[in-house]
Structure formats: C-alpha cells, structure tokens
C-alpha cells in the first residue's frame, strides 16, 4: 500500500514537473518570438531613422547608455541656395514645384556624397552640407570646392531635363567657408535632431548671398582659398560687408580647374 502511495506521489510530481517545464518552454518560446519581433522593429526603425540622422549618431544612441555628447569640430561648410525660387513657387503648380525641388535635391545630394560631403539640412530650397563633420577628412576643403564645381555641372544637366519637360531652368549660389562648429543632438524631449551650430554656418550662408551681388555662382572665403592647392582657377572679388560682420569679407569665385 505504502509503495503504491509513493509511486502515485512520484507520478503526480513527475506530471506536475513535466507540465511546468512544458509551460515554461512555451513561455520561453513566446518571449523569444517577442524579442525577435522587437528586434526586427528596432532594425526597421534604425533604417528609417537613418534618413533623418547620420548613421553614426543612430548607432551611438542605440548602442550606448550615454547621450550623444556635443563636440566642437573643424569642418568645411557648403551652403547652396536656389535663386528666384520663391517667385517660381508663386507662378507654378505646387506639385510641379515639389517635383522640381526633389529632383534638384536628388542630383545635388549624389554629388555631395560622392565628394565626401554630408547633407546636414535642407532648409526650404537651401542645402547645408558639411565636410569632415562625422569623419576625419584631411581633404575637406578640396572636397567641398570639387563638390561645388560638380554641382555646377550637375545643375546644367538637370536644367536640360527641366527644359525638355517645359519647366524653367534653375540657378543657384554656393558659399563655402570653414571653421569650428558645435555638433550634437539638439532640441527638447518632444522634438530633437542632430545638428550643427556656429559662426562658420552663418558666414557660409552670407557668402552664398553675396553670389547675387557679384553675379556669380560659387564663392569661397579667404580661409578656404588659403587651404586650396593651385589646381583651382580663382578670381578675387571686391570685399563687401555682410550682416553680422564688422569688416568687409573678401571672397573668390571659383571658375574651374586648371588643365593638366
């Protein structure tokens, strides 16, 4: 009787244990599935987020516990802006304007990326691009000027396409300057973004505005000229005062590359 009792108790215990193990296994399987699903979601989010913020910043934010520390960096700033675009907006269908603008951004971004530039911001019809912001780049000044020259060629090509489609041609101004900027994730809890601030950004924008005064398309500052080698054909422009500066700024227009 005692033996049967012990066998029964043993059987009951074994059954309970098996049921428990099975339940835990099921639970574990569920957790693994949930984890995989969450992981997939995170990967998708990383990919989409990559369109708004540099990959390196995303990796830092997802891999580390610490916030992205703002840093001062020496960069070359290229600011490009379309001329007469506001008027074009008033005269054309909004969908056409957006289509033209998107095509322009696509062409210019390709040229900038090819020349190691990083498109940091699109401000209306303006493009802010940095060279040497995320990676050490000893050739950042040359890269920026080469990018500007290739942007000029790319715009010519794009204008042919626009002309064929019956749209007006575009023209732009480009300002290039260099200096130290503060890069980091800026904003508040509800809305923040990776961005850069500093005087070189403002100067590049002001120099771009001078392209209208000097009736040219690419202008660089003295600091850029001093770092360029002799491959580039430059023409000195008369110094002009710009907003926010007490002294007039000397700029140079980049005409092209010397033949070898």
């Amino acid at each position, binding site marked *: 009787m005692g033996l049967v009792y012990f066998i029964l108790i043993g059987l009951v215990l074994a059954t309970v244990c098996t049921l428990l193990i099975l339940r835990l296994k099921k639970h574990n399987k569920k957790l*693994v599935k949930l984890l995989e699903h969450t*992981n997939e979601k995170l990967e998708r989010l990383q990919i989409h987020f990559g369109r708004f913020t540099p990959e390196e910043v995303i990796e830092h934010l997802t891999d580390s516990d610490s916030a992205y520390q703002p840093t001062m960096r020496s960069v070359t700033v290229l600011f490009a802006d379309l001329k007469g675009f506001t008027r074009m907006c008033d005269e054309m269908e909004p969908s056409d304007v957006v289509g033209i603008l998107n095509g322009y951004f696509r062409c210019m971004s390709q040229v900038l990326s090819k020349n190691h530039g990083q498109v940091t911001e699109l401000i209306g019809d303006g493009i802010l691009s940095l060279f040497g912001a995320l990676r*050490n780049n000893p*050739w950042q000044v040359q890269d920026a000027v080469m990018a500007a020259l290739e942007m000029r060629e790319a715009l010519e090509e794009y204008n042919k396409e626009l002309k064929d489609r019956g749209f007006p041609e575009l023209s732009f101004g480009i300002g290039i300057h260099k200096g130290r900027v503060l890069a980091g994730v800026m904003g508040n809890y509800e809305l923040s973004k990776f961005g850069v601030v500093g005087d070189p950004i403002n100067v590049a924008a002001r120099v771009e505005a001078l392209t209208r005064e000097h009736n040219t398309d690419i202008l660089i500052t003295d600091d850029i000229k001093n770092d360029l*080698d002799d491959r580039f054909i430059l023409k000195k422009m008369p110094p002009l005062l710009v907003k926010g500066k007490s002294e007039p700024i000397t700029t140079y227009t980049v005409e092209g590359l010397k033949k070898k």
Partner: protein
Amino acid sequence: MGLLINEIEWGDPTISVFHDAEWEAEIKADIGQIPDIHTRTSRSPWLRRTVLKWPRYEAQEFPTKLADICGLVAAQENACRYCYGVAKSWMRLWGYSEKMIKNIEHNVQLADMNEKERAFIRFCRNLSRSNPRPPKKDREELLRLGYSPMAVAEMAFVIVNHCFMNRVCTFISAPPMASLERLPNSLLGKIFRPLIGKKLRSIGWTESTNIEGDPESFPGVVQKLIGLPAAKAMHDALNGALESDTLSRKLKVLMFAVVANTLNCEFCMAETHDMALNCGFSEEEFKTALATLSSSHLNEKEESLLAWTRETIHFQNASIQSRVRELTQEVGEPMMLEAIGVASLANSTVRLAVLLG
C-alpha cells in the same frame, strides 16, 4: 549593427581568374582544393600568399571560439558577402548552432556568453568598422576583464587580418562560394559535419618560424606583435607588399600615408613620413602629394590609384566595386590587383597601429 548576408550588395568580379599551375599545385597540397579567390589573386606573389595563409591563422593566446566568432563579425561589419558566407558556413560546420550564429549576427540575446566574450564581440565590431577610429578604451576594457596584453594584441591582429580579407574580397568582388554555403544544410553536410569540421580545423595555419633580424629595424606595428606568430605574418606581408615591383615604392608609401592621415594615426603618419623621405620625396613634395593626392613622382595611372586609396577606408560595396572596375580598365589588372592588396594591408596596418601604437 552591420547588414545581414542577404542584404549585402555584390557585383560581378572586378579581377579575372589567372591560372598559375605551380601556384595551384601548392594551394592544393596545402588546403586540398582551389577556391576561386586564390586564382584571382595569383598574379601577385605576396598577396596570394597572404590571402592563402592569413584567414587560417590559429590564435595562440585566446580561445578558438572567439577567433571563430571574429571572422563572422568582421565580415558582417565590413559587408563582405564572400567572407560572410565562408565564415557562416565554417561556423556551422564547426558545430555552432544556427541560433547562436543568428544571435551574433543580430547582436542580441548574447546572455549565453560571459562578460569577457561579450566584450570581445564589442571590440571586434568596433575595430572592424572604419568609423569612428578604433577606440583604445575597448582594448583597456579587455585588459580589465583579465585578458593579457599579448592576448589583446593577438585579438587585434586576428580582427584586422579578417578586415584585410574582407577588403580584398570586396574590391575583387569575389563570387560567393555557393557550394560551401549549401554544405551545412545538405544531407551530406549534416551526416559528415563532425568529420568536415575536423578537416577544416586541420588546415589551420600558424607561423612556425621566428622573425629574424634586429627588432628595432621592423615596422613599428610589427614590433608591437613580437612574441606572437602574428609578428612574422605581419612582417612578411608588409615586406612583400613594399618590395613588390608592380607598383612604385613611392606610390605604396603614399597609399599608406593617405590611410594613416585619414584615420589620424600619428604613429603611422610619422612612419610613413620617414619612409617617404627615405625613398626620395622632399619634405615639401610629400606634403603637397598628400594635400593634392598627386605628385610629379607619380604617373597618371598611379595618381588615379592614390586617389582611389581614400575610397577604401569607408565605402559602399556598389560604388567601390564599380570604381575598381573602371580603374581596372584604366590601369590594367596586375596594377589594380596590387593596389587592392596594398590598400587593404594599409587599412589593416593603420587600424592595428591606432590600437597598439
């Protein structure tokens, strides 16, 4: 996290197969078969030998399991489709579970591993990446966790050794080894897995001869590896690359200097500066060559290769492979292959120096 194997862009080969009967017999005697990559690198004596030996380097100072994982992580971080397929297949044939491989690939659920192993994987990922620079704090973390300085130096060598292979195979766009990749899941593979795994282990390579000469005369990065078989392996590869006459020594020194400057490695910048002055550049010429990526000491083809070196540091597969294809047309296969080897070696050397220098 890097891309997964089926997400990697991969084009047609940029360098064609070149048959060298003597070399093929040597490969067959060594590893029993002739994988495609060895026939594409066969034109360059130092490169083909490095490609044959380095991926089979047997770590002496740290566990084999970590060395196995290293190949997978480096290939994934560098998005090398060829090496990724090989590393994944080898791991399966060595007996690692599909689940474990998947967890490493996704960089998740690494709870089965201990802290030292997780720190190693982190180190491996960071050193394999081209940006940011390899962080020294990762090395310090490994030392803190109890690995010896020698073990960490060898880990770094094994990682950059894989990075070297990743670059060579990516620039050549070596066709993935489809038959090897199918093997772990095939019936034969499943039945004979232990045997195949054992055979694979048996072709491991370690440098058995010691490095000869005055250690002071060795390149700085080799000096940091003295005491490990890796020192001789690194020394032979660097010597082979610099002594080869397919490209001029001046171009090769500049290629190393370009990588050193981009990765901001002061140790290598100083070494390449001295090497440049020793091979005939004046101070000013060297400075100008680096600033403009052109020099009166180089011909037009060499200038194209020097400018291309920049692209080998941080790259997207599609664009680098298409650029290599264009350049191969311009400079010819022998020069391009040599440049692929030198640029890949420069990237690995400088990364190692940033960490150990």
